[in-house]
């Protein structure tokens, strides 16, 4: 028996204000604001002026456990997720050891349930050890207690066309999806770290050309068509990839795509000062690509926002730029970035935000109980957002263990005020509500 919560006056998906009652893990009442008769709630949350969204779902999170517990753990990453408004995250497989067996997947799954702050759903590796050669035990992971449905070698591309074909065919048997890190390693070796263009030429940094992503996206949608399977493109970063996905969807190919908050706002010129905080894979792209990504997210060609939250210990970023670790934090600021870029920018309304940050990612990942409408009988996974709050990001205020925060010092609009996981408050007044 969980506590009963009354939320008063929240604007459902930015629309009409309503009172909601959460009890026993589900939404038990949704009525016009001010008309609730609920009097026995353990807690009342004044949500006047706040927008209620279904709890956010992140298709792409690196929680670093097992292996790099100094950078993040399932517990600390779950906290960061909750503070960011998330009720479910997909934990990428590139841990040490790699999540490429049922046992490894169940380990991560159990750590998530023990933390109890958001639903941690492990992603399984496509190939053993992320080596790109032999299929990992996809079926055993799918049948495991963790119920893995999304498979990815993220960090590495499944670049061998034959292996990719077999993976796509194989996961059809249990409704799985392959999430591809699209990077042709011949065109963009894993040392590539700066968008290939004038700036990479000037800075003398190894170029990462957009075409190295686009050729893999193009190949994979053709493989998805050929196999009749489903492919998901992780962290789409170029206008060219958007064009390919647009074409593929028009053909009826079963493809979905995600974009990160950083690719929606940050541009390649930030690399000018060689600050490894801005080193990420795929790299930050020029403004033209950013524009195309925003447009594609607005019109549904890109289905979801996914953070690619990638915590790193400070010393792993204090190397020369080409030697430093790839990745940046994302969970805590994602909603604010999307609010600033997409809502303030007039490209999405709050219903659209709910679609790209909750409903679509939940559907892609096959997560039942998440991304649902805010209606009676639905699981009480939701987040309350102050749409007009202005926040200046302070990396030292983060609940993540890491500080590789590209948003530090930036002023963003929109702040998560509260998060509820199956009716239990994980965040209240923008702070963790759980030990």
């Amino acid at each position, binding site marked *: 028996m969980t506590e009963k919560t009354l939320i008063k006056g929240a604007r459902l998906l930015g629309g009409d204000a309503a009172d909601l009652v959460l009890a026993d893990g589900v939404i038990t009442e949704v009525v016009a604001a001010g008309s609730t008769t609920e009097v026995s709630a353990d807690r009342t949350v004044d949500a006047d002026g706040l927008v209620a969204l279904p709890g956010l779902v992140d298709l792409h999170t690196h929680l670093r456990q097992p292996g790099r517990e100094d950078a993040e753990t399932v517990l600390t990453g779950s906290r960061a997720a909750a503070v960011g408004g998330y009720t479910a995250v997909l934990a990428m497989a590139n841990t040490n050891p790699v999540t490429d067996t049922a046992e490894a997947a169940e380990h991560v799954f159990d750590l998530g349930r023990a933390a109890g702050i958001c639903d941690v759903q492990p992603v399984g590796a496509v190939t053993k050890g992320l080596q790109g050669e032999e299929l990992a035990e996809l079926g055993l992971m799918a049948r495991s207690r963790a119920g893995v449905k999304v498979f990815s070698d993220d960090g590495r591309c499944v670049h061998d066309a034959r292996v990719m074909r077999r993976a796509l065919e194989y996961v059809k048997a249990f409704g799985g999806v392959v999430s591809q890190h699209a990077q042709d390693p011949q065109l963009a070796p894993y040392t590539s770290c700066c968008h290939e263009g*004038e700036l990479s*030429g*000037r800075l*003398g940094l190894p170029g990462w050309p957009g075409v190295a992503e686009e050729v893999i996206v193009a190949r994979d949608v053709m493989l998805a068509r050929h196999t009749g399977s489903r492919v998901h493109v992780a962290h789409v970063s170029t206008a060219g990839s958007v064009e390919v996905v647009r074409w593929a969807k028009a053909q009826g190919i079963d493809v979905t795509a995600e974009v990160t908050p950083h690719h929606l706002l940050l541009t390649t010129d930030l690399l000018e000062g*060689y600050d490894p905080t801005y080193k990420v894979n795929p790299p930050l792209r020029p403004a033209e690509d950013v524009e195309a990504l925003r447009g594609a997210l607005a019109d549904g060609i890109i289905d979801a926002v996914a953070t690619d939250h990638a915590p790193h210990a400070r010393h792993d970023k204090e190397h*020369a*730029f080409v*030697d430093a670790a790839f990745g940046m934090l994302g969970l805590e600021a994602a909603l604010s970035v999307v609010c600033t870029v997409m809502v303030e920018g007039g490209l999405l309304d709050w219903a659209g935000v709910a679609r790209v940050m909750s409903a679509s990612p939940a559907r892609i990942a096959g997560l039942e109980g998440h991304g649902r409408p805010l209606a009676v009988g639905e699981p009480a996974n939701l987040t309350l957002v102050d749409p007009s709050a202005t926040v200046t990001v302070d990396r030292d205020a983060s609940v993540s263990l890491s500080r590789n925060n590209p948003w530090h010092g930036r002023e963003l609009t929109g702040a998560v005020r509260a998060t509820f996981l199956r009716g239990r408050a994980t965040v209240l007044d923008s702070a963790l509500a759980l030990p």
Partner: protein
Amino acid sequence: MKKHLLSIDDLSRDDIEALFETAAEMHDVQHRSVKKLPALRGRTVINLFFEDSTRTRSSFEIAGKWLSADVINISAKGSSASKGESLRDTVLTVTAMGIDGLVMRHGASGAAHQVAGWLDVPVVNAGDGMHEHPTQALLDAYTLRRRLGSLEGRHVAIVGDLTHSRVFRSNIKCLAMLGARVTVVAPPTLMPAGIDAWAKDAGFGTSWDLDEVLAEEPDAVMMLRVQRERMSGGYFPTAREYTVGYGLTRERLAMLKPDAPICHPGPMNRGLEIAPEAADAAASAVLDQVSAGVAIRMSVLYHLIAGPNEGVTP
């Protein structure tokens, strides 16, 4: 002058003139039998080289020693990442010994820039990856000035592997600042990404055709080293084909104005990018560059470490 010399961007035209003026005085010292100046007596300079180097390191070493500094060479080959130590920890460790200046070479672009942000002592970039090598550009320009007089309006051709060249990246800025007109020549595969926009913005020319550029009778040519391992990277098919397209061959030597200086930062691949006849031609400036290198580095160390108000004239 700024505290560090990380890029030619750190220098103004006046800074370059001041460095050249001091270098000219230092250059005279090289011809004395007693070469020591007391300018940096009691100062310690560390040459921290993460990448192999013979000429640049010894040039900085001699420069420091002739200024009476205590010069320590540290070879830290292999990336610090592979040894598990962060770059920041490595340089903080070295500077904690109590030093007055750090001369650093690193295989990664931007490394000197990052290090300067962590340290209080002046940092001189002795080459960072494919990014910059400012003292090389200064010594090249200094050499050309001694040969040609003013560089204002002079046409300089830079030929070779531009993509991987920090010498090119520093030279393009330095020569432009001194008023020279530069054309860079390379096959398309050895041109950096986005060079057209860059060239337009920075006001230099680009060409895939060396003969066409030489037909314009440039006032100087600068040949860049081409590493043979670039062939395995598929940048060009064979050494022979490279030489035919982009080498300063005997035939092309004959196209040059007789007094046009021929520069090469070394080490030279004789027979690949430069024919022996060109390397040894009367107009060759290759050894002048080496000698100017010591003078320029003395000047840089003097200006950055002794500072302008130290009262010790060179």
